């Protein structure tokens, strides 16, 4: 097994073992979305209209808050030092951790989206499209959040700092994600253009995120 796959497998295993954070993101997402109608009111027509926005905001918050501990645990037990001394570039190690995090946090979140869609009265037949926008957009959230997680470790601060640093950077993802989801649900704008831009954002952050995060971790060496 290559070092990349070994790290990916280790992080996924840690996430699903006792004490790991897998499903916690999906749980947070479920609760946030289920809370919205209490604030907005149970008007099904209104919920259907703003449903994609609620789902996307929930996914955004869940993705970012779950990232808080991504490097912190490895930093606290000394693993991060050893991760830096491998023959594999740190950028790849960081990417492996991010992919493992995406697979254990974002994928369950996408899987439960159709159920939440029912509760928000979103049309069943277009639910698949909304889930597809999340599938295309959440990698961007994870990889942008990665930078914040690395900065938080470098600065030795966690928690809300991560969200404050990263949330503004995710605005484009939110704009095009909700636009694509709305286009799929109600139209009249075509689904293609916003969805393509969403995919482009994900691909760009897939490259940019690990590079910036690795740089932040190296800067934080002390």
């Amino acid at each position: 097994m290559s070092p990349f796959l070994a790290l990916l497998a280790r992080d996924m295993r840690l996430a699903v073992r006792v004490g790991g954070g897998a499903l916690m993101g999906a749980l947070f997402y479920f609760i946030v979305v289920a809370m919205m109608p209490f604030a907005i009111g149970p008007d099904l027509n209104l919920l259907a209209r703003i449903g994609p926005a609620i789902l996307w905001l929930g996914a955004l918050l869940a993705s970012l808050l779950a990232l808080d501990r991504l490097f912190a645990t490895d930093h606290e037990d000394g693993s991060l030092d050893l991760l830096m001394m491998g023959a594999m570039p740190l950028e790849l190690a960081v990417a492996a951790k991010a992919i493992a995090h995406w697979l254990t946090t974002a994928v369950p979140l996408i899987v439960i989206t159709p159920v939440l869609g029912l509760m928000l009265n979103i049309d069943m037949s277009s639910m698949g499209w909304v889930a597809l926008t999340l599938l295309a957009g959440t990698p961007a959230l994870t990889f942008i959040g990665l930078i914040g997680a690395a900065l938080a470790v470098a600065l030795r601060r966690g928690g809300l700092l991560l969200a404050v640093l990263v949330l503004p950077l995710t605005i484009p993802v939110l704009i095009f994600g909700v636009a694509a989801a709305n286009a799929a649900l109600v139209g009249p704008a075509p689904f293609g253009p916003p969805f393509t831009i969403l995919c482009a954002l994900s691909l760009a952050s897939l490259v940019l995120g690990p590079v910036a995060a690795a740089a932040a971790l190296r800067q934080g060496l002390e």
Partner: protein
Amino acid sequence: MQLRGGDLACERGGRLVFAGLNFALAGGEALVVTGRNGAGKSSLLRVLGGLLRHSAGRIELSGGADEATLAEQSHYLGHLDAVKPSLSVSENLLFWTTYLGGPRGAAIRPALDAVDLAGLADLPAAYLSAGQKRRLSIARLVAVRRPVWLLDEPTSALDTPSQERLAGLMRDHLGSGGMIVAAAHGPIGLDGARELRLGRPAEPMS
């Protein structure tokens, strides 16, 4: 194979930790770094391991694998054990062996035997005592062959038999041409090791 540090200086948070440090180490030799608390023993090891930048001077490793950096040819044993409690003893070791580029599974068993943890291979690491975690961390040095060992107070948390076993491992490593740089307060069981004494830097930063 030779490791040489010339005129090394290190600065942390605006404070000069050490400066003007010179040493040279050949294969089969050990260097014991001593000095009082805060003299920069740990910092020196982290500088050598590429985990901390040095503010001046140079570090050269000659005669090793050409394309690999010093960090990639070093084992670092710090104060923290890098052991994940929810993974079993062998899973922990297997991960670091694979990640640090060691041979496949075959090296796991002998390495655990070397630190006397073979009987606990399937136990989740959460159950290990501090000394056992330390030994699991040491097993990594045995499982993956790297020429330079950077050991930061390696005997801490170890009982006397384990300290003797570690001394044996270090002698084997030196015998096969490896190098050891160890920070220590007391004797670590290596005869004929050279000593590098860290004192207060000559003059404060202006």
